[in-house]
């Protein structure tokens, strides 16, 4: 059997070989590219906009914070009705029988009312008898009563006023909600909720799932993202804050979010805006496989022969071939 080493010698038999210094080329490339990187780092720096904290949110827009917390209790936020992997309250995305969001179950359990409101308030109520009483009243009430309080409070919040960071609504029958929300916004404004959602009974932690989901349910964070051109309708996955390039190599992935059928309610072949994430992942998987298999796919593998760019790349070779022909 012929070895590959021998077959390379055979492959180049009759081809004129010229001197070449691979190591020198590599060293020069590392040096040259290093200079480019150094200049870019020195003169252009890198994205450095600080992250949004729950405290910043509660201070900047306490009404949005309280509205979001109230919606978490009512179970009407995105997280509350998300479905897997957080809970079973939503059906998740599927395409015909393909429903991977359902297949793997609830692996990161999030009960919005308890996780974002009740549990943090319980931790904050150790030395606060008024808050402890309000939580007991809430938990002792029937679901029907809770729904009536939530409905009345939610309707009052759009006209809420803010004084010294405290949210006040018109007089009404809201049960213990004003006390609960007043305490929650106070804890949040002091930075306590950032810690409670992150630490969550542990000491060491690196998981920000709860805090990010809670902030994602409000409008403050998405408003900041809108201003920075980071939302999905603004090709968000490709952007960074300021004028910095983001993941521009994701352009082909991001472009589908701007086009039908993934922007359409009716869609095509079962793909529409409600299962766009799943559809685009399936499409990109197929396209990536096609790119890998280009050498085996007729037409795709023939395009380089049809497009004469190779005649520019190997112009010396073709010029020599013409003169010797």
């Amino acid at each position, binding site marked *: 059997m012929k070895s590959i080493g021998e077959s390379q010698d055979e492959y180049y038999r009759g081809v004129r070989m010229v001197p070449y*210094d691979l190591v020198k080329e590599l060293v020069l490339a590392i040096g040259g590219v290093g200079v480019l990187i*150094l200049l870019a780092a020195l003169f252009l720096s890198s994205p450095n906009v600080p992250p949004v904290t729950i405290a910043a949110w509660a201070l900047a827009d306490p009404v949005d914070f309280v509205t979001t917390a109230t919606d978490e209790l009512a179970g009407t936020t995105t997280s509350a009705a998300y479905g897997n992997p957080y809970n079973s309250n939503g059906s998740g995305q599927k395409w015909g029988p393909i429903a991977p969001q359902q297949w793997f179950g609830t692996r990161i359990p999030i009960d919005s009312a308890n996780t974002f409101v009740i549990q943090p308030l319980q931790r904050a109520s150790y030395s606060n008898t008024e808050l402890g009483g309000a939580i007991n009243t809430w938990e002792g009430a029937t679901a029907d009563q809770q729904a009536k309080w939530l409905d009345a409070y939610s309707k009052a919040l759009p006209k809420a006023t803010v004084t010294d960071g405290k949210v006040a609504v018109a007089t009404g029958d809201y049960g213990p909600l004003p006390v609960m929300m007043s305490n929650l916004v106070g804890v949040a404004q002091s930075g306590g909720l950032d810690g409670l959602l992150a630490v969550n009974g542990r000491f060491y932690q690196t998981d*920000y799932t709860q805090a990010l989901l809670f902030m994602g349910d409000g409008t403050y964070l998405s408003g900041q993202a809108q201003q920075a051109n980071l939302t999905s309708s603004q090709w968000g996955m490709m952007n960074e804050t300021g004028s910095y390039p983001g993941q521009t190599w994701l352009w082909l992935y991001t472009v589908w979010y701007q086009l039908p059928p993934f922007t359409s309610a009716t869609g095509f072949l079962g793909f529409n805006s409600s299962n766009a*994430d799943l559809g685009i992942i399936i499409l990109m998987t197929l396209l990536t496989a096609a790119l890998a298999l280009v050498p*085996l796919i007729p037409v795709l593998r023939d395009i380089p022969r049809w497009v004469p*760019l190779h005649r520019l790349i190997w112009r010396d070779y073709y010029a020599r071939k013409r003169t010797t022909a």
Partner: protein
Amino acid sequence: MDATKRVIVPPVPGKPASWTLRVRQAIDRGLPMDHLLPDRQPYYVGSWVYVFGVITIAALAWVIVSGVVLSFMGPQWWHASSLGRFFNSLHFWSVQLFFIFMVLHLWGQYFMAGWRHGRAATWMIGVVIFGVSILTAFTGYLSQQNFDAQYIAINAKDAMNGAGIGAFFNVLNFGQMYGLHVMLLPIGVTFLVVVHIVMVRMRGVVKPIDAEGGARP
């Protein structure tokens, strides 16, 4: 006679019994040193297109060097000190250049039909490197610890969850993303790049299109 003197055993014809010797001989046959570090190449290798591969490797070297410094100093460093931010910037721009050069290399190889004459696997490994690099960069963008990282995570979770990936690959979990970014994924990219380079050196540079051998694999 000196009792410690080495006794040279003459080679036995056929397959050697020593596994070590078999491996060494296979490496010698498959990738002799003059193919791994060649000092000559075909005369038609003259275009700047050929430079895209080596500058991609150069950018990767800077990605790794700057990344090692960042991971050594830890996540609190790069946004909290001017030196940390400088190394963060080195890492940021080396990644940008790595992708620019890699995409140029990919398109260059496409229009040269670089997969011809038994090089299809080299092309396929290259596409896998591109995919794993995108995943590595994605976890890096999620590990920045700035506002961008926050919103990329919130945006990206729906795509991951919709495809069922989010049950195991939680983009909101900084610890998981950071661990993947500084350990498993860079090892994967580096290993695949080494395999890719070895495959290129084993077979050498492909001949021009329409040269002897045709355009198909």
